[in-house]
């Protein structure tokens, strides 16, 4: 399990692998991505990856290697899933880190280890 933050505390109750969020808006995915980004800025081995990062050409593998990422969140993947090279990177990174992917289109050729949801209370954001 990966846990960080206080109020809300974030708990990712998964082992390394590839996980896709269930198809539902307003779960708190983008909020989680921002929390992961803040933790990353604070020196934690976490990498948030957004559509903006993709447009800017940020190399996901390099970003993960730089901090030996334990947790990666790929946000709004529906907008750039067609990039086969990036897809291979995500699958490779998922062998050693928890990779959470925001993907709504079930026809995209990305095989998850499991699907996950977010449970939110006032003080806790739990991915399980």
């Amino acid at each position, binding site marked *: 399990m990966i846990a960080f933050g206080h109020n809300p505390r974030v708990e990712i109750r998964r082992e390394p692998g590839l996980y896709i969020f269930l*198809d*539902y*808006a*307003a*779960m708190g995915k*983008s*909020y989680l991505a921002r929390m992961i980004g803040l933790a990353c800025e604070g020196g934690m081995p976490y990498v948030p990856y957004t*559509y903006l990062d993709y447009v800017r050409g940020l190399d996901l593998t390099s970003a993960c290697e730089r901090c030996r990422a334990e947790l990666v969140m790929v946000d*709004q993947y*529906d*907008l750039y899933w067609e990039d086969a090279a990036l897809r291979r990177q995500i699958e490779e990174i998922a062998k050693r880190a928890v990779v959470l992917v*925001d993907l*709504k*289109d079930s*026809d995209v050729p990305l095989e998850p280890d499991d699907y996950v949801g977010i449970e*939110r*209370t*006032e003080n806790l954001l739990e991915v399980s």
Partner: protein
Amino acid sequence: MRCCVYFEDPHTIPVIQNVEATFALNRFSLDGTDRKIVQTVEKGELVDGKVFLDRFGYHLPLSELSTGSKAGIVTHHQTDCLVDLRGCGINAKSAILAFCQRGNILMKYPSCGVIDYADGTKIDVFLEDRHFVRMGDLMYYLSDGRILEHCH
């Protein structure tokens, strides 16, 4: 005015692919439709044109709305564009179908169906040369009706 639904880009009007960017770059005059979208998708409330109340009672800037709510608001106001709902969950798509009575949306055929948020109120959806005013009719068409028609 009606909400026109496309399963493929008709290439007749500009497409908004990133609703986050469009939402951030525009200030919309929010109304009752936007309020219903936010109530349904966020389980929250619009406070004014800058702030909303989330499901936990926190006042947050509109930039913190989910992508799905932003897509609904953009659809309702950018009626000269086609809004690509690729990044939206099924609840957001369903809310847009239930409440947006104008605008244009591009979405994949929802093979798992949609959720009925209309609660008996009239919808105004135009899809594949058909005009739907009842959510039940649209849901039937999206599940069995369309497939049966395409078989004949």
